[in-house]
């Protein structure tokens, strides 16, 4: 069996995090056999944090929280007020993650999740480093880790490749800042699915598995065999979380931010069960290497 905890992104089941949606997400995550659920905090004002934590504990599920920032609250900005709003959002989100019982807070913590219209500036990058240094110190005090999720060129201008992310993590300089690889984004930006994994090595903290079109695993062309073999080569034991989006399950904000125009599936629970079986077999297969 896999040593990796397997997770599923909440947006497979529901677009928001009202109490009814959270109950459905947790029930279906458990039913599909996952170890943890990832909540995106884009809808966090609606999230009942203590209630969700109690439901997660009752179900015996782990939790990871993720988010991207917005153009009005962006730590990669040159504008001090915009940076301050971004830093406050990160601080609040870290507290929500802790409140949910999670120890890992990840995503585009370093920029808005969106299409920039100019390259990252030197001052903007310095702001990212300064804010994330503070956030990392705060997280370390709580025994928590931060993830830098590497996103494609249309979702950030700060880090698009593993090499970019390692440079940023080096500059932040805290060992509780880990790298988060996402196969969907890697398909657009990396040369292949092996070398980025080897490059990141033991600094890998979290993995998103998504198809090239973000639909059913195996219905696209991503070279998952190469990716899982590379994860095996670095002895990665951290969580592996399935992420998928369809116009059938819509968040009023996030779906448009992520350009989810197409219907790639209708039945989230069925998709989740399929993905878990796919992951179990792919991870198991990669462990059976004959030399």
């Amino acid at each position: 069996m896999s040593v990796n905890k397997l997770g599923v992104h909440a947006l497979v089941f529901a677009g928001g995090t009202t109490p009814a949606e959270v109950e459905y997400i947790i029930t279906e995550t458990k039913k599909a056999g996952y170890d943890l659920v990832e909540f995106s905090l884009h809808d966090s004002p609606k999230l009942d944090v203590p209630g969700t934590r109690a439901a997660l504990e009752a179900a015996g599920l782990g939790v990871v929280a993720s988010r991207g920032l917005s153009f009005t609250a962006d730590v990669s900005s040159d504008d001090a007020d915009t940076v301050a709003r971004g830093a406050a959002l990160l601080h609040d989100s870290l507290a929500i993650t802790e409140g949910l019982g999670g120890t890992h807070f990840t995503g585009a913590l370093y920029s808005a999740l969106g299409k920039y219209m100019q390259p990252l500036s030197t001052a903007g990058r310095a702001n990212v480093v300064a804010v994330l240094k503070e956030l990392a110190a705060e997280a370390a005090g709580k025994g928590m880790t931060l993830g830098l999720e590497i996103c494609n060129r249309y979702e950030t201008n700060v880090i698009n490749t593993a090499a970019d992310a390692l440079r940023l993590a080096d500059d932040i300089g805290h060992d509780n800042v880990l790298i988060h690889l996402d196969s969907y984004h890697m398909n657009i930006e990396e040369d292949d699915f092996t070398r980025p994994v080897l490059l990141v090595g033991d600094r890998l903290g979290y993995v998103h598995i998504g198809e090239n079109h973000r639909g059913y695993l195996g219905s696209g062309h991503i070279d998952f065999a190469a990716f899982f073999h590379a994860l095996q080569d670095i002895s990665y034991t951290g969580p592996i979380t399935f992420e998928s989006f369809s116009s059938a399950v819509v968040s009023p904000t996030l779906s448009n931010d992520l350009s989810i125009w197409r219907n790639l599936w209708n039945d989230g629970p069925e998709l989740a069960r399929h993905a878990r079986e796919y992951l179990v077999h792919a991870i198991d297969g990669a462990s059976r290497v004959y030399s």
Partner: protein
Amino acid sequence: MTTNPLGIHAGVWVGDWTDDSARYAIESSAEAGYDLIEIPAVDPRTANLAHTVRLLAENRIDAVVSLALDASTDINTEDATVSERGEQLLSRTVDFARDIGARYIGGVTYSAMVKYTQPATDASRANSLAVLGRIAAKAKLSGISIGVEYVNRYESNLLNTAAQTVRFITDLGADNVLLHLDTFHANSEELSLATAVRDAGDLLGYIHASESHRGHLGTGILDFPGLFRQLALSGYTGPITFESFSSVIHPRATANTIGIWRDPWTDPALAARNAHAFLSAQLAAAALTVPSIH
């Protein structure tokens, strides 16, 4: 043996179309062995078209024209004023193509090339079809075909796959409108490049060969052998044009639109030579492979 014309996007060489840029781009493309150059549309009312025509003839190279609408000229809209500007731009682009002797206009001709913040609507799609129908009719008078280049989800909300594009062209109902396949965009949206070619069927009229990260061909993730075998099986004889972007060449505004935050290369001549050799080798290998399949 090679029947497909090999092309190169002018944007590999230049970021504008001044007389000097036109000379450099056309001469460099011919020197690197290409059969055609894809020229981003310029305003025929102000450009020195005779200069371009002369250079194309002197260098014995064909031209095709490309353009992408933007938010101010979008025809995938319910805003009549914006749509009218888009129709005028498309109409001027037909004039430009006609006046330089190009027979093909491809690109994001049906939509703005932008990150939309909402899905397309039935009305915006219908408007796009109506405008393109009129543009296709005008183009046909000059023997020009219109290419509909589907792009990834971040560059249009209307056409992201070959299957959607076939439905769009079928609804459009003009026989001089073709499907334009770009491998970079297909990488994000399709099951595979080969299935995209099969989905496109007889409507496939033009191909952009662009790597998964838009850098040197062969240095990324794309399954080019699978693509070229399917093209051979399908009997595709149309153009295959190398497209790659580096902000070394591109004006910052263009690079910003398509999210070029790092430079995959600094030497356009090296990129052009590598791509020509790569595409030629893929065509040759596919020709050797496909007869053995039968």
